[in-house]
């Protein structure tokens, strides 16, 4: 399959991931327990775009605002839309990351890492290198959190558990009005 076909035909995977992640975060009070013991705190923030991928004409809806406004997204999910992009925060241990994940490309808009502490007692060149390496390590840590959540989703999605319990629970959540 060439790249453009793959991008078009497999785009559903990223959209299902972001939609599932919202469900998982909402029903777990923001604390998602990954099999193996790790916990990732996930909060959907103030911006979300949902659309209908299969429609001939694009039908998208963008929601902005706090938690209660975002819950209007449930109505869009009931119409068959899925999340194309969302701004969210991810936290594990002390470090928090925020970003806008776009599902089609799995790209990261406005990716914010925790601040880098200024490297003191170093020369200018050494300081630039130390700052760079610290930033690179933080970016990797943030990417690892996304990958951990994505792997958890994938393992569920290809398992029998998906049809048996995960998808029915997700549908019940979408049907809920709270």
């Amino acid at each position, binding site marked *: 399959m060439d790249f453009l076909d793959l991008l078009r035909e497999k785009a559903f995977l990223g959209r299902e991931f972001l939609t599932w992640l919202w469900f998982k975060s909402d029903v777990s009070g923001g604390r998602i327990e990954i099999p193996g013991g790790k916990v990732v705190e996930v909060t959907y923030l103030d911006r979300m775009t949902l659309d209908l991928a299969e429609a001939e004409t694009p039908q998208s809806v963008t929601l902005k605002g706090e938690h209660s406004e975002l819950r209007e997204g449930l109505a869009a999910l009931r119409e068959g839309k899925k999340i194309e992009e969302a701004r969210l925060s991810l936290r594990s241990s002390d470090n928090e990351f925020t970003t806008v994940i776009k599902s089609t490309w799995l790209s990261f808009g406005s990716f914010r890492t925790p601040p880098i502490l200024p490297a003191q007692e170093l020369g200018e060149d050494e300081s630039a*290198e130390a700052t760079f390496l610290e930033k690179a390590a933080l970016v990797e840590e943030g990417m690892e959190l996304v990958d951990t959540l*994505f*792997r958890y989703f994938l393992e569920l999605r290809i398992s029998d558990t998906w049809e048996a319990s995960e998808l029915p629970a997700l549908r019940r959540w979408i049907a809920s009005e709270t």
Partner: protein
Amino acid sequence: MGFISRSVSMMRYRVKGEIEGAFWEAVDDGVRKYTFRSVDGPGDEVGIGWTSIEDFTDTEFRGASYVRGNYVALGLRVDTVRVPPRILEMHVKQEMKKRLAETGRQRLSSSQRRELKEYVKESLKKSTLPSIQVFDLVWDTSQGLAYFASLSIKARERVEDLFKRSFGLTFIPLVPYLRAEELLTDSSQRRLLENLTPCSMVP
């Protein structure tokens, strides 16, 4: 905003291919061969190439300054000029009048008009100040991953092309399906992934 900023927009790429011979020598050759320089020719692009990630005017890379541990850190600088449309129109009209007067003809053919417009545009490009864009690229050579600090399609096309020319390696955007293939290492899992179809989440 650049890679080092508090907030950065970026794409992840898998770097595919093998460098033949000594790795860091090949990297150095590639960086220096495609260091930022002016380019001639049609189109809006008047300069493209690698610069220091900290200083877009530094193209010397003293002491292989782009090397940071296992990372290669570069700026992709792209200079473009856009002749303001009305200025272009004005000069094209002036030049057309001049040519018609010189040849004594009533009008120019459509191909002559197109050539004239290109000629005028190219000469005006030289007196128009460029717009300078710089996008950071961070290549994690130990993991074969790269982060490119722009989501713009045009910028991405440019970096994919320049990276290929510089190092002979290909950038594959890590879209969800391709990342999924990497995260699911077991072959039976990958077969299940390949056969997945969209599911309806409507209650």
